[in-house]
């Protein structure tokens, strides 16, 4: 009987899945003291570590990684339990990982020392979410502080959330994907093999330092902002470099250095992009005048506009200049047409009143372009206009049509 009992205890040590059954079997009083000692050991080792809600073995975070691998195979990709294993962390662990991602120590591989037994997605996901909203909120705050001194016309921009989310989540997923693809393609012979999940986890945690920094970026002091960029990029960048150096160092030297440089540059570029886009608006951003669009307008459009100009001039003639007001819809093609024919060098674009425009144009264009003088002057006859060039003929036809229509 005693020998049987000892055998069962050994089985229980080796196979944790059967442990409950075996130990239930062990309700009998045991005579052998050695056996009882073994049972005690096994009990302390196995069951004091279970969280009270845990029903399955997947939540056994402190056990060996061998167990975890076994569980990964058992739970299917489509089940909820499959994703629960990526959220298998407790508060202290997350704080420890966040702190570790900000403190580069030479010789300490962040992934191996902090992440290795079970990479999680809780920390990276919520760090990215937090960063999206701190950047959007702090960016709005910075914008407000800039506008407060000059003018009180400030409106908050909700859509900074979507820009920040796009930038951060694409950085978090695309760079690790590229890195993982590169490592897989190079096929490093080193003993370290980083899984995609681990790389994602490291990259997510490496963004943690930008959360406090993005709040400090609201202080509108240029040198302080750039100092913070440097600190953030150096700290989190060097953690990344120390982490990924061991996997690429056995590759060709050029490849290794290029990969390291790219990792660092992308990390720093993200920080610089944040500052430049969300926080660092140059003070001389006042001139928001509407630029004239004539350089991009193609020739047929110009001609059409031109014909409308002629029509307008003629209708003005018909109306004997009784109407001083022209509605804006007509006045804009007028201005565009005149600039298209390079007459209105002296005419300011903002001046759209019809009466002075007409007189000024006729005076200006007399010396420069004869054709235009003909068009603009109300008293000229149309047949004279048709004598100048092919395009003018086309215009005259258009004018004909226009007049017939009107």
């Amino acid at each position: 009987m005693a020998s049987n009992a000892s055998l069962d205890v050994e089985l229980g040590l080796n196979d944790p899945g059967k442990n409950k059954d075996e130990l239930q079997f062990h309700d009998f009083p045991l005579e052998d003291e050695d056996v009882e000692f073994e049972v005690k050991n096994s009990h302390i080792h196995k069951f004091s570590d279970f969280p009270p809600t845990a029903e399955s073995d997947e939540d056994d975070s402190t056990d060996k990684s061998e167990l975890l691998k076994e569980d990964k195979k058992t739970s299917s990709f489509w089940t909820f339990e499959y994703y629960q294993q990526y959220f298998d962390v407790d508060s202290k662990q997350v704080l420890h990982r966040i702190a570790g991602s900000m403190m580069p120590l030479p010789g300490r591989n962040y992934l191996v020392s902090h992440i290795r037994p079970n990479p999680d997605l809780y920390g990276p996901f919520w760090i990215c979410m937090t960063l999206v909203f701190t950047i959007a909120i702090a960016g709005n705050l910075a914008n407000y502080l800039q506008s407060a001194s000059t003018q009180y016309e400030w409106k908050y921009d909700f859509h900074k959330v979507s820009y920040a989310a796009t930038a951060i989540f694409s950085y978090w997923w695309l760079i690790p994907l590229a890195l993982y693809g590169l490592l897989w393609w190079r096929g490093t012979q080193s003993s370290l093999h980083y899984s995609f999940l681990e790389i994602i986890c490291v990259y997510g945690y490496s963004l943690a330092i930008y959360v406090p920094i993005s709040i400090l970026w609201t202080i509108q002091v240029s040198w302080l902002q750039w100092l913070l960029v440097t600190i953030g990029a150096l700290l989190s960048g060097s953690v990344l470099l120390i982490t990924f150096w061991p996997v690429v160092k056995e590759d060709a030297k050029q490849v290794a250095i290029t990969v390291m440089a790219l990792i660092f540059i992308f990390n720093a570029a993200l920080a610089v992009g944040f500052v430049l886009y969300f926080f660092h608006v140059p003070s001389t951003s006042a001139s928001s005048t509407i630029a004239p669009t004539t350089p991009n307008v193609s020739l047929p459009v110009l001609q059409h506009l031109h014909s409308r100009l002629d029509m307008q001039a003629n209708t003005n003639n018909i109306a004997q200049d009784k109407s001083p007001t022209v509605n804006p819809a007509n006045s804009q093609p007028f201005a565009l047409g005149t600039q298209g024919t390079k007459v209105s060098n002296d005419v300011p674009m903002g001046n759209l009143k019809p009466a002075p425009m007409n007189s000024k144009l006729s005076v200006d264009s007399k010396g420069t372009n004869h054709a235009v003088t003909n068009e603009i002057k109300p008293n000229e006859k149309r047949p004279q206009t048709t004598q100048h060039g092919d395009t003018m003929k086309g215009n005259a036809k258009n004018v004909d049509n226009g007049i017939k229509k009107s």
Partner: protein
Amino acid sequence: MADVDFHSKQDDSDLSLEGEITVPGVAKSDDELSTLDEPVKDTVMRDLRAIGTKFFHVLYPKTSKTLLKEWDLWGPLILCVYMAMMLQGNTSGQPEFAEVFVIYWIGAVIVTLNTKLLGGNISFFQSVCVLGYCVCPLAVALSVCRIILIANQTTALFVVRFLFVIAGFAWSTFASTAFLGDVQARNRKVLSVYPIFLFYFIISWLIISHTH
């Protein structure tokens, strides 16, 4: 000795499982005699009263289990439509109706999924219901802000609005953690409370920065 400890633990978990089966409120509504005979008015009034009771429990978070027993999504829907209507702006840069709506529901769903993934002992819609109802203090703060915004804006009025929103935010967070705090194991409590905090913080930000 060791064996005895282990077995007592297992008995506890068995007990809690048994207790949980009786919790959902479906059985209770089955016990009530058929609602087909009663006037429509009674039915509607009973539902409205249930919604009102939940609002009261959110505003006065004393008993922690009432909100969890029978979930409904009427209250969250009402609150969500109200806040989206109040927060939408027609000028550029302000959130649209649909954006507020999406933030509200997707936010609640993500927070709930987070709780479930961390191993929380709660059903999906119970959590969404609680999170939705707990926006109520923030909706009150929003109403106050809208009234204040009618007057000419000064710094003092901004401070008043700010204080109201802060109070609503604290109230919402406190109420929801009172209802949802117990579903998580102790060493993960912070992890499940933080997303709730973030969720209400974002809604508070939307309210305080709404100026037109």
